[in-house]
């Protein structure tokens, strides 16, 4: 079914006609976005979910336009005949002092984390949200940093390039960066906070369990007690700096409260200050396990705004780099999963050895192993040699062999099967309601892959399958990753076979400060970890006006509690590992 926003608008107008007293649900049309009446948004969302099949809310964020705020939603459908572009919705909030929108958590539980992020960054209150607390910053932080009038402590200038660098700067003194930073110049303290150490009072304790007390769980004849256990923030199996507050009844998990934000550096504020080009190397710092694909997602999003064509040879290079990343990411994810299960080092280090070969290829092609900075608008940064392509094929063959070896090593292992079968099983419907995407969602049986449902780059020209599994338990998540790594090998072989022998790797002239036409776009790609999206707003200048990253790990973590409750403590660690999170992307 061809996607037609006008038809959807008409259907919504029919379902929610305006009366004399109240307006209809759709109050305006803003480019490709439907502007909704804020009060009716839960009703409209319920209608879209139940009557029209749009049951998958993947992206929710906001934007500050100085005179008003906007909250944006991207709804997609899991129905096989309705996949493809989703419905972009937005709500305008003229009140900047106390902006307020009804919460969607009751309709889409996945909105929970993203609404909290919007509250944290923009100060938009979501009425009816069960736990309206900050998520990336700490309670007591002063201000909402993504607002345009908020400036960080060492604020220098609204946008880069800074005037203090060229043409006639003072010689920078003092020379060390942290002494130059004018911490004192713009520090904002929480209300009622006295910076005098003599007067210092600890901040009031925040109840992270949100007051949820679960009744005693019967565990045989043992007398159990309810305790709260902090795991992290520096626990080795938490995939970075991550803290889980786990409520326990005996050994059974009754609640999980993820505390995140330890690696938060406000990637988005930095992104709005940077040039459009300047953001490419920053995206690698999101998910540092698969940097190439972060580049990929960002340049695809900007090319949607500019409408720039991509050179054919560059498209193939993009696919090759992207799929190498995916295969390696899945092998590593399996390695980490076994690390959490107690198979301490072997699978993980086998995975790392394979990764080295791929990183060697990246280093030669781009100049760096991890922070590649390889994709450019309309192309890629450097061409590769024939010798590189030859070695790439050897590495791909090796990866295929090694995936077989992984399967021999792990798939039939009885200890693994008894630990993983049936643990944390979840239906795809429930996962979709949490906004979960990527291998997790497919392991539960839904063949939803953005490379197929909303193809970007030249994925349409490749012949590959979307593997799925049935139950979504730990074992299926493992098998899903192995199967997807095999499909990546399949795509890589096709790409290497058809690789154009010559040609340009860049369309047009590469500019260091390209202007991007005014507009707004939500663009998503199938990152190895799930749906990686960019919500970009351009005002026609050389810097983004709004730069938002819809991080797959962040949203997938929202389902952690639902996946963990009722399992044993030891399994909850493995469940976290099976979600495959990278904290650099969760905390941004």
């Amino acid at each position, binding site marked *: 079914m061809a996607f037609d926003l006008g038809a959807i608008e008409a259907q919504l107008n029919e379902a929610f006609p305006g009366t004399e007293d109240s307006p209809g649900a759709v109050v305006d049309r803003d480019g490709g976005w439907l502007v909704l009446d804020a009060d009716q948004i839960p009703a409209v969302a319920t209608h879209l979910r139940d009557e029209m099949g749009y049951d998958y809310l993947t992206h929710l964020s906001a934007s500050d336009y100085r005179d008003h705020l906007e909250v944006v939603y991207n709804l997609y459908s899991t129905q096989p005949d309705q996949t493809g572009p989703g419905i972009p919705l937005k709500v305008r909030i003229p009140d900047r002092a106390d902006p307020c929108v009804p919460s969607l958590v009751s309709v889409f539980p996945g909105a929970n984390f993203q609404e909290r992020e919007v509250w944290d960054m923009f100060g938009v209150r979501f009425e009816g949200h069960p736990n309206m607390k900050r998520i990336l910053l700490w309670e007591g932080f002063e201000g909402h940093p993504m607002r345009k009038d908020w400036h960080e402590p060492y604020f220098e200038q609204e946008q*880069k*390039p*800074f005037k*203090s*660098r*060229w*043409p*006639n*700067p003072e*010689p*920078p003194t*003092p*020379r*060390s*960066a942290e002494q130059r930073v004018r911490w004192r110049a713009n520090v904002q303290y929480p209300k009622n906070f006295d910076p005098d150490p003599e007067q210092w009072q600890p901040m009031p304790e925040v109840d992270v369990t949100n007051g949820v007390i679960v009744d005693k769980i019967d565990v045989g004849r043992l007398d159990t007690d309810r305790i709260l256990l902090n795991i992290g923030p520096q626990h080795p199996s938490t995939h970075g700096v991550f803290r889980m507050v786990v409520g326990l009844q005996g050994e059974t998990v009754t609640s999980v409260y993820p505390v995140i934000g330890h690696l938060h550096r406000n990637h988005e504020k930095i992104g709005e200050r*940077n*040039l459009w*080009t*300047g*953001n*490419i*190397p*920053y995206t690698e710092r999101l998910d540092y396990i698969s940097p190439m694909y972060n580049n990929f997602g960002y340049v695809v999003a900007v090319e949607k705004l500019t409408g720039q064509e991509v050179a054919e040879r560059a498209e193939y290079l993009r696919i090759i780099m992207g799929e190498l990343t995916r295969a390696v990411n899945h092998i590593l994810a399996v390695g980490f999963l076994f690390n959490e299960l107690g198979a301490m080092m*072997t699978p993980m*280090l*086998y995975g790392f*050895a394979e990764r*080295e*070969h791929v990183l*060697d290829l990246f*280093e*030669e*092609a*781009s*100049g*760096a192993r991890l*922070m590649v*900075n390889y994709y450019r608008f309309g192309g890629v*940064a*450097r061409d590769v040699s024939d010798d590189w392509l030859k*070695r790439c094929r*050897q*590495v791909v063959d*090796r990866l295929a062999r090694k995936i077989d*070896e992984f399967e*021999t*090593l*792990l*798939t*039939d*292992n*009885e*200890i693994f*099967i008894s630990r993983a079968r049936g643990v944390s099983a979840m239906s795809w419907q429930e996962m979709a309601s949490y906004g979960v995407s990527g291998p997790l969602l497919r392991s539960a049986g839904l063949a939803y892959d953005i490379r197929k449902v909303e193809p970007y780059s030249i994925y349409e020209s490749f012949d590959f399958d979307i593997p799925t599994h049935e139950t979504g338990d730990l074992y299926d998540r493992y098998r899903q990753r192995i199967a997807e790594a095999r499909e990546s090998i399949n795509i890589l072989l096709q790409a290497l076979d058809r690789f154009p022998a010559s040609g340009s790797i860049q369309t047009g002239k*590469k500019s*260091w*400060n390209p202007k991007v036409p005014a507009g707004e776009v939500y663009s998503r790609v199938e990152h190895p970890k799930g749906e990686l999206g960019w919500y970009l707003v351009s005002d026609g200048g050389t810097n983004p006006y709004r730069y938002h990253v819809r991080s797959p790990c962040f949203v997938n973590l929202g389902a952690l509690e639902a996946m963990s409750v009722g399992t044993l403590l030891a399994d909850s660690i493995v469940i976290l590992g099976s979600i495959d999170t990278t904290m650099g992307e969760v905390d941004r």
Partner: protein
Amino acid sequence: MFGLGMLKGLSVTMRHFIDSYLYDRKPWEPRYNSEWLEKHQAIDGKGFFTIQYPEEKRKITETFRFIPMLVYEETAGDPRCTACGICARVCPPQCIWIQRATDARGRPKAQPKGFWIDATICMSCGYCTEFCPFDAIKMNQVHEMPTVDRDRDMFYDLDKLLVPVEYYAELHPSDYEAEEAARRAKEEAKRQAAEKRSAAAAAKKAEAAKKAAEAKEAEADKAVEPSEPDDLTRIEGIGPKISGALHASGITTFAQLAGTGVDRIKQILEEADPNLLKLADPSTWPRQAKLADSGKWDALERWQERLKGGRGA
């Protein structure tokens, strides 16, 4: 059968274990061996993958980038950098500071007076190199730089940044070759275009010039006595023969030469001896003469080092 899967898995680890004895360094071989390293990190390598850093080091590729450096041609006082500021502006973390040099009259000069890079901020993205129009800033590959004083050792100024072009050519040979080839092709195209232009202009002006020359000759008779003649051979490209020809047509001082158009000089040479033009290209002479007239011998010499027989380099 329960346990079969585990045994299958253990066969894989066992194979790796045996491989590490079959394919790896033998106890009687030298402990740190770079040949060994290359063999085992090859794509078809088996056995250990780990290395004994720092005794053994991985080879880094030619494209590897770390912290920027500035390239100079012959002396450190003559960097390729023109202080255009593109690198300072494109730098995503803004770790480059550039001060433009000024000449005696305070006008900006195409040269950096100060250039600082804060290596603690630099994110090694390579944008400065990629967008530099003069191939002046390149990525260094020195990546092991432990230090006890960040202010002193991690903050790079011109002294630390400048490297000779040979060093760059050694680090990135294929990039260097490609750039040089591109530059030669561009120069060749420019030279051909200039030749075509001058040939056309010469033909067009031949008539008018003849008349003008006659008029000038008449004027020259009336002209005031020329001042003390200068040694015109100090101009690169002017030998005794050309100097004589110029003297014969009344040009004896730098000031006069500086005030003469290139076409006029060509005409003089052609009249004196048509073969002279094949050897000499007078296009830079008036500008050289201007420097000589104003006594800027240092600048002239620096420039002449780059000139080949008076042709622009």
